[in-house]
């Protein structure tokens, strides 16, 4: 480690360092590519910009942390490639006594601080984008009420009718006002990447703009008792026309 950093003549020409550097490059690339895919693949196709951003940010975080993870892996693997000693008695003590390397530690701390800062700033930017949807005055307001173990929806912008089904018009921002009648539930539309707890006595909010017509999953993400596992629903994202039809068929107004 310290050999990497101290300015001994030509430390970089040492064989150990070269091998480690090679491994580092290989591991970083592998972790970035595989890690990014492993995360993105199961998350499926995004049904909103929020979710698309989330998938993107997770890939990005993977890429950013890949060099760090790659370096740790490279050093670990290099150590394991060294001649090992088995047996009941210890091998002779190491022929060097490096117990510190201020430069290596300084580089390490600064780099990790920078990566951390990057992650933070990037997260904030996305967070800000998500929050902006909340402020959209044209959004459709829907009141969501959780109770053991069902969801109810009040379409307050569409004549205030109630429904047990969630229909959303595509490409139109929706503003959910979420509460609960009994215990804490959590309102989670999986493919849209939004979630907020439903608390008794409080109103919480979240917002999203669905971007794809289709049927998605609404699940409860907070243990809420006996039938928590079954407290789920389908979310129907439909065209504006279909949405209007659906609303009028339920006695609502456009």
């Amino acid at each position, binding site marked *: 480690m310290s050999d990497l950093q101290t300015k001994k003549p030509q430390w970089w020409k040492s064989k150990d360092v070269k091998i480690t550097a090679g491994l580092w490059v290989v591991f970083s690339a592998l972790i970035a590519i595989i*890690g990014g895919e*492993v995360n993105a693949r*199961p*998350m499926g196709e995004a049904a909103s910009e929020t979710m698309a*951003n*989330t998938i993107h*940010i*997770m890939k990005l*975080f993977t890429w950013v942390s890949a060099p*760090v*993870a790659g370096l*740790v*892996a490279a*050093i670990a693997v290099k*150590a394991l490639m*060294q001649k*090992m*000693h*088995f047996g009941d*008695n*210890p*091998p*002779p*003590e*190491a*022929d*060097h*006594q*490096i*117990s*510190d390397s201020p430069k290596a*530690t300084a580089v*390490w*701390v600064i780099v*990790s601080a920078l990566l*951390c800062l990057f*992650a*933070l700033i990037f*997260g*904030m930017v996305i*967070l800000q984008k998500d929050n902006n949807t909340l402020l959209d005055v044209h959004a459709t307001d829907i009141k969501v009420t959780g109770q053991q173990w069902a969801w109810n929806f009040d379409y307050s912008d569409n004549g205030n009718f109630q429904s047990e089904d969630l229909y959303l018009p595509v490409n139109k921002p929706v503003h959910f006002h*979420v509460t609960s009648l009994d*215990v*804490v539930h959590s309102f*989670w539309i999986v*493919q849209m*990447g939004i979630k*907020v707890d439903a*608390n008794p*006595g*409080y109103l919480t*909010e*979240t917002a999203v703009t669905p971007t794809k017509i289709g049927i998605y999953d609404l699940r409860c993400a*907070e*243990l*809420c*008792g*006996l039938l*928590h*596992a079954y407290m789920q629903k389908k979310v129907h994202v439909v065209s504006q026309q279909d949405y209007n039809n659906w609303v009028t068929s339920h006695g609502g107004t456009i």
Partner: protein
Amino acid sequence: MTTVMNHKSPTASHRPIMERLNVVTAVVLGVAGAVISYYLAQKFLPQNTEGSVMKTRHDQVVLIGMIGWFIGFMTGIGALVGPFRWLMGKDLSHDENMYLAGKDAGIARYFRYTTDHKVVGIQYLVITMVIFGLGGILAMLIRTNLGNPEGGWLHPQAYNAVVGIHGIVMIVGTIIMITGPFGNFIMPIMIGARDMAFPRLNALSFWLIVAAIAPILSSFFLGGITTGWSAYNPLASQAPAGMDGYIMFICIFAISTMVAGANITTTVVRMRAKGMTWTRTPIFIYGTVASVALALPAFPVFFLSQIMSGMDRALGTTFYDTRGGGSGWLYENLFWLMGHPEVYVILIPAVAALMEMAPVFTRRPLFSFKIAVMGIAGICGLSILVWAHHMYMTGWAPLLNAPFMLTTELISIPTGMLFLVLVGTVWRGRLWMTVPTASIFALLLNFMIGGITGIYLSDVPADAALHGSMFVTAHFHYTLMGAGLTGAIAALIFWFPKMTGRMIDKQLSWISFWMVQIGFNVAFMGMFMVGLAGQPRRVEAYAELFTRGNQITTGAAFVIMAGMLVLLWAVIYSWRHGQKAPMNPWQSKTLEWSVPNPVPLENFETLPTVTSDPYGYGKAQS
């Protein structure tokens, strides 16, 4: 009491009360206390009034019964002898203290209120293994139920109860798994002390945990803990009387951690050997102290949250009931104020233990001791400022999400320092390949995965997709089990020769290591996948889409179980028939290896003087 006691031939008729107390009298008095107080409560407590909203009587009766057990048990084990004698002004004499330390008592001292730190250490080791055994069985029940998407192998209520008890039992097990056995047995010898600062508090901290086990076990028969280990209110106020067992368990356990924390910290601060300056103190000591000192301010908050939960249930207060001005967010805040430091309470000693072993098995000094200390201190300091990242999605204070994102991501800096120390130490060292050595690499892998997935979760938008899903479950298993438990098992194998006087079976421990590590990584990778795909936590049935991931996890979980059973067998077998260990089998330079096996009652004939740090490997040649 004041007569000089003759330990060589104690005649039963003349033994003072103090010497008659042991685990049997404790259980007898505990059961008697429980039965009597239960009976009295049933008889004299007023009935629920007609039409009252709060049906509190049953909870009152159950809680009073449990308090009766607690008081009876602690009296029966002899915890009150010390305070009582202090009050009377008859302090324990030297002979009595020696009796309490278990002098010449043989095997019986493990079943008494014994103050010798080595006895307490062994007691902790056994109880930790019992707790892990219990939690492990429950884990297998969970995984079996999740083997097919319909669930239904367990009744949903039973499933929830199993999840809750698995959670809390494992959390408690991992909290004590290093500071309990090794913090008590090894730590005082490592710093060159004859015993802990407060030997009687040491015994107290252990027996409190034993006393706490009855309430948690009784919850099985009282409807279980159906709320998950976090016991969120108001769900907890709905839960059956098993919840009272949880409340009682946490309260007693919180007292135990407080007592242990004050004791261990004082011991390290005041009783290090002559010449053991802070820079010469082994890193494991730092880890242990950081862990227990962090628990000191953290656990009382948990304690309070459960007292209020109990008051809501039994007295009809409305701390968490919104109908009476209470707030569920209050509970969540209090819970996570403890909950996040607690994660580091578990993790730090595990990492520190591996740091302690790294120089021994690479035969070179610990890389950058100062950075290791800074990393530990940094984690401790930041950990009390990050609790609300568990609450991003609760909506309690959306404006605070960004600051908590900052503090949470900052924690990756000191955590990175711990990585640096470990990779710096293995770099170009000549590895002596043992299970602890391999555990260092396992920890690097698991902790890296746990850490990076933690970065995703620290980010608010990503957390919106992942919070409350199996992804979170897999993430914290990577940190607590993949990193924490790996370190604890390595510590067990490393210090086994000193604690039992025998070497642990090499072959069996290697088999166990590979089974557990491979099983673990496969199992929780599967769990990550289903979490990313959107499977919520704590569900007893799930959509078809998650079937494959869950079946992978379940299959691999059985491999973990088999590996753990191999380890258990290795421990039991080696403890009884293992090869006798030399005084210093690993040729380590810390003090605990300078005392003979078995370690004498007061550890050192003459107290040692320390002249250098314990990592002076390879220096002779330079």
